[in-house]
């Protein structure tokens, strides 16, 4: 089967999986949402009935399922009403916050991969050097450090002790004009650096793995024997071929990147989707968690498909 066709079918399967998971998983729990909301407090039975009516929980399961599908496939998609921010809808909460999450994610992705590329280039140029060994050890260490702990470390050094960067939030209240932009940038520095360092760790290990492989290949041997400059071999032959595996693996690690983004936003109190999810844990805000699982999975699917498209454009061999 064709590579792209196969990836599209897989994406549809993932989409259907999360669609059904989101509906059936909460209904596996003992008691429905209205009873859970009312648990522990002295709520009269009529109020519970009213709540059940409000959420449509008194209808048969297949009607609920149909209503659920209708909500998701309308525009804008309807994930229901948040318990924690009642009467705000989950969709509206996402609209307000998604831009901030994207700002963190995309800028840290760009920074992290750029750093890894530079490090991989210099360690390919000086094979077996001290820098290579150091970058290797540092990457292994980065990959094993819990990101919320390194985030706390950076926060403690740069925000609490040195007071260079703000402690939490995304922008200062009342900042306008150029000050507004500056305030956004200053608030984003620590979260972006934390995420970028972690992206650097994993993509450097990946890049190095594939440069090692490329260095053993016949085309590098041929280039060496033609007497090409080391620099030219490194950039034109080794690194260019090593970028392909990076793209294909990065589209897979997008899911783990989303998990890390949630943790980073939690530590820095950065008002994106992740921070919303953390609040929802404390408030047992089902609709927000369900909605964000759905939204984030769709984001990962779309990101993966874009990655695949780039991959096919870069490597025509995949077309057949």
């Amino acid at each position: 089967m064709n590579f792209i066709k196969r990836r599209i079918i897989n994406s549809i399967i993932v989409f259907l999986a999360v669609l059904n998971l989101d509906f059936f998983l909460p209904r596996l729990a003992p008691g429905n949402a209205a009873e859970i909301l009312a648990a522990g407090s002295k709520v009269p039975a009529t109020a519970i009935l009213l709540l059940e009516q409000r959420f449509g929980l008194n209808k048969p399961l297949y009607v609920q399922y149909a209503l659920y599908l209708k909500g998701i496939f309308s525009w804008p998609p309807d994930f229901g009403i948040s318990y924690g921010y009642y009467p705000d809808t989950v969709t509206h909460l996402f609209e307000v916050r998604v831009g901030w999450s994207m700002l963190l994610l995309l800028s840290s992705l760009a920074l992290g991969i750029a750093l890894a590329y530079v490090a991989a280039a210099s360690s390919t140029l000086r094979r077996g050097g001290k820098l290579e060994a150091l970058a290797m050890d540092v990457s292994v260490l980065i990959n094993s450090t819990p990101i919320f702990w390194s985030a706390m470390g950076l926060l403690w050094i740069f925000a609490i002790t040195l007071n260079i960067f703000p402690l939490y939030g995304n922008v200062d209240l009342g900042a306008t004009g150029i000050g507004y932009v500056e305030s956004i940038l200053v608030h984003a520095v620590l979260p972006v650096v934390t995420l970028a360092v972690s992206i650097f760790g994993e993509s450097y290990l990946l890049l190095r793995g594939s440069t090692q492989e490329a260095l053993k290949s016949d085309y590098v041997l041929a280039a060496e024997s033609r007497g090409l400059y080391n620099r030219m071999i490194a950039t034109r032959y080794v690194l260019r071929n090593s970028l392909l595996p990076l793209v294909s693996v990065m589209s897979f690690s997008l899911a783990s990147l989303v998990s890390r983004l949630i943790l980073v936003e939690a530590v820095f109190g950065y008002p994106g989707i992740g921070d919303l999810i953390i609040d929802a844990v404390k408030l047992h805000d089902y609709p927000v968690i369900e909605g964000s699982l759905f939204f984030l999975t769709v984001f990962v699917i779309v990101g993966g498909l874009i990655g695949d498209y780039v991959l096919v454009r870069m490597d025509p061999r995949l077309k057949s």
Partner: protein
Amino acid sequence: MEKARATRKLEDRHSIAVKKADRLRGFGWFYSRFLSNKSAKVGWFLILCVLLMVLVGPYFVQYAPDAIAGEANSPPTLAHPFGTDYLGHDILSQVIYGAYPSLIVGLAAALGATTFGFVVGVLGGYYNKLEWVLSASTDAILSIPALPLLILIGIIFVVTDQLIVGGLMLVLWAPAARAVRSQVASVKKLPYVDAAKTSGMSDWRIIWRVIVPKVGSIAMAYFVLLVSVSVVLATALEFIGVGNPEVVSWGSILYFAQQYGFYLGDWWWVLAPGLAITVVATGFALIGFSFEEMMNPRLRT
């Protein structure tokens, strides 16, 4: 290209060492197989340190993890080398006693995920008909962000250790299955598998006698790597409040620290538990990498 030649020479020496290792027995065999590599040495050292802390530590600390041991919010002193928390609990003691729950969850989840992933990977790699179904479900798990899924499970059900282990298994089996599957697919092409088929061995016998011994080592490497991942993931869940705050574990210490003292500047509260997680995760990751390096047939020949 002096250096390229030098690295090639090194690789030759490495493969000679491995061949030698096949002839050795007893500790010599163990040493050259599992410890002859720098990252393996460091990894085993870190894990032994942690094991020592778990086993011997409780006899050395003077305070129980839930005892009011001294002044609240005290920075490190001689009596409390890692300070105290907002209620006056000794943090060193909490880290030592909290190791057991954190490690046992990670080990159990990694063991379950590797076993399941191994079975799925072997079947998916061997039977062409199953390959597509299993690879699609593997891809599905890999594309759903683990943390939101585990949070959803965590707020729906009553959080117990079994639930956390089950949830971690659900999200972690997929990478192991993928690695095993690709390995099985390449082993299946070897001529002696054809030979076994022509000689009339049944599929199950071929899987047991020919495929499993060949890919068992990669499952072992994956198990060790997954321990590292699952300890960190379990701690992350506890850190954001999906866990049992009554049980002292590394994650719950960090959870309380973030709630009650860290943003006021109590750095000592997060230093020791975070360091402990990092040491465990780094140790297992290094051992896992060294396993992979030593057992990967491509690197060996």
